[in-house]
């Protein structure tokens, strides 16, 4: 019992200590070498920038997160529905794969200005760009997942005359979940990229805009502040997916990894 607690403390403490050490080395190195602040600020200067105006970063984080999650949700739902159709029909898969691939290989930055023209500067173009960048990984993983049913389980269900509907809900959908979660792990960081890129290009409010302004002002500590906030968002989102995944996929061998 005691040993278990000690092990847990060690598991949590190790990465915290490593990060603290890294920041300490950074701080010392910048101070000793007297590096110019606009090139590389000290971690303490970055922290000061964050503390000076926490509301601004919180609001930026909220807006970017909203766009990223909205896009991810839209892409996941759309991709899964399309994947159901594609998993049931090879012809449909052949027909739909090229446009899906075209959407994937087209650089998102090339399309973003168009979305701004069409949908203005609000949430909509940001959501769409985040959706566009996450759609393909979700689609491919969902199709593979929906096809990954155990043929023995399928035979058994057919032998007791399960309806296509029962086979879909009780076999296909649960079988697809490990792949859907693998897609989510890829897509979560991509959705943040999509949101920030959209903000860069349209200049609408969010972490992307904070970065743009800080960059224009040569305010490198604020720039680093924004980077730290984005990194933290990415970590929180990825860990949340991992947490949900471990709950949902307790039966799957992949669920032991983070």
């Amino acid at each position, binding site marked *: 019992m005691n040993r278990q607690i000690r092990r847990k403390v060690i598991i949590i403490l190790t990465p915290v200590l490593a990060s603290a050490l890294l920041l300490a080395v950074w701080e010392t190195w910048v101070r000793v070498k007297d590096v110019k602040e606009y090139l590389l600020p000290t971690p303490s200067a970055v922290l000061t920038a964050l503390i000076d105006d926490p509301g601004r970063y919180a609001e930026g984080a909220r807006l970017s997160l909203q766009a990223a999650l909205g896009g991810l949700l839209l892409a996941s739902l759309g991709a899964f529905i399309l994947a159901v159709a594609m998993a049931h029909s090879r012809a449909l898969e052949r027909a739909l794969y090229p446009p899906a691939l075209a959407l994937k290989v087209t650089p998102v930055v090339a399309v973003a200005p168009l979305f701004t023209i069409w949908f203005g500067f609000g949430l909509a173009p940001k959501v769409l760009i985040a959706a566009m960048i996450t759609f393909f990984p979700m689609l491919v993983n969902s199709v593979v997942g929906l096809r990954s049913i155990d043929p*023995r*389980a399928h*035979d*058994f269900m*057919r*032998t*007791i*005359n399960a309806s296509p509907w029962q086979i879909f809900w*009780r076999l296909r959908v649960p079988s697809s979940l490990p792949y859907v979660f693998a897609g989510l792990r890829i897509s979560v960081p991509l959705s943040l990229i999509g949101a920030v890129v959209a903000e860069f290009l349209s200049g609408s409010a969010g972490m992307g805009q904070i970065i743009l302004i800080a960059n224009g002002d040569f305010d490198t500590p604020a720039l680093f502040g924004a980077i730290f906030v984005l990194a933290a968002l990415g970590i929180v989102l990825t860990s949340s997916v991992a947490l949900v995944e471990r709950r949902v996929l307790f*039966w799957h061998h992949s669920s032991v990894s983070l």
Partner: protein
Amino acid sequence: MISTSQHPNLSTHPAVEVRGLSHRYPVGNKTVAALQGVNLTVNDGEFVAVVGPSGCGKTTLLSIIAGLLPPTDGQVSVLGGDTGSARRSQELGLVTQDPGLLPWLDVASNVRLTLDITGHVDAADERVNELLERVGISHFARYYPGQLSGGMRQRVALARALVHHPRLLLMDEPFGALDEISREEMRFELLKVWEQERTSVVFVTHSIREAVLLADRVVVINGQPGRVTDVVEIDLERPRSESMEEGPRYQSLLADVKGLLVSGNDPSDSLSAVPEDRT
């Protein structure tokens, strides 16, 4: 549909009646024959084992009886109806070597799934418990398949295949992946359950010992494409026991069946040695 499977009436039809069955399947732009002119009868309540070397089409035969695969030629009647009708009226149970349990459901839910799908929802939990008890895994009802040994998983598969009172149980090498000790144990476990549930059984295996120990009749399939070359009546008394395996009658039946299986080394030679169908 539900009421007929709930009260199996001992009808005059044989459980399975196969006449002149052939099956061919395409490989590239050629067709390969898996079964040719197969005749087979399984009487109501009878336990029939099908033995043959690997690749003789045993599994194909079982899939056709299950209604999962349409035959290329010949007549197949299952429980008095055409192929697929027994499947549609949910009177079949299937146990395969790799049973394909659903890993996200615990043992009880895996067994219950059959009842949910076949619509036997009245007193479902009682029936699930009864079956789990019968196959000796009631203590593992809340375990997940990934936490069980191969033998345990086959017990779950057996419970899942019998829980809805099917009239015909189809088994495809069910103990083929088990170690020798669990295999032996599962054979008697199956017999015990079968004495209580009394369905007709088609049991595909490549173990001659298993076939002779379990079955009322052993159907021998040989060749490529597979043909039924012999049928051996197993007149050992029931219930079968481990001590029978030492007895002279068992030993002589074993030797008979062994002699009827053509060793698959030289197919051209073996085909010429095949006697006429005696089904």
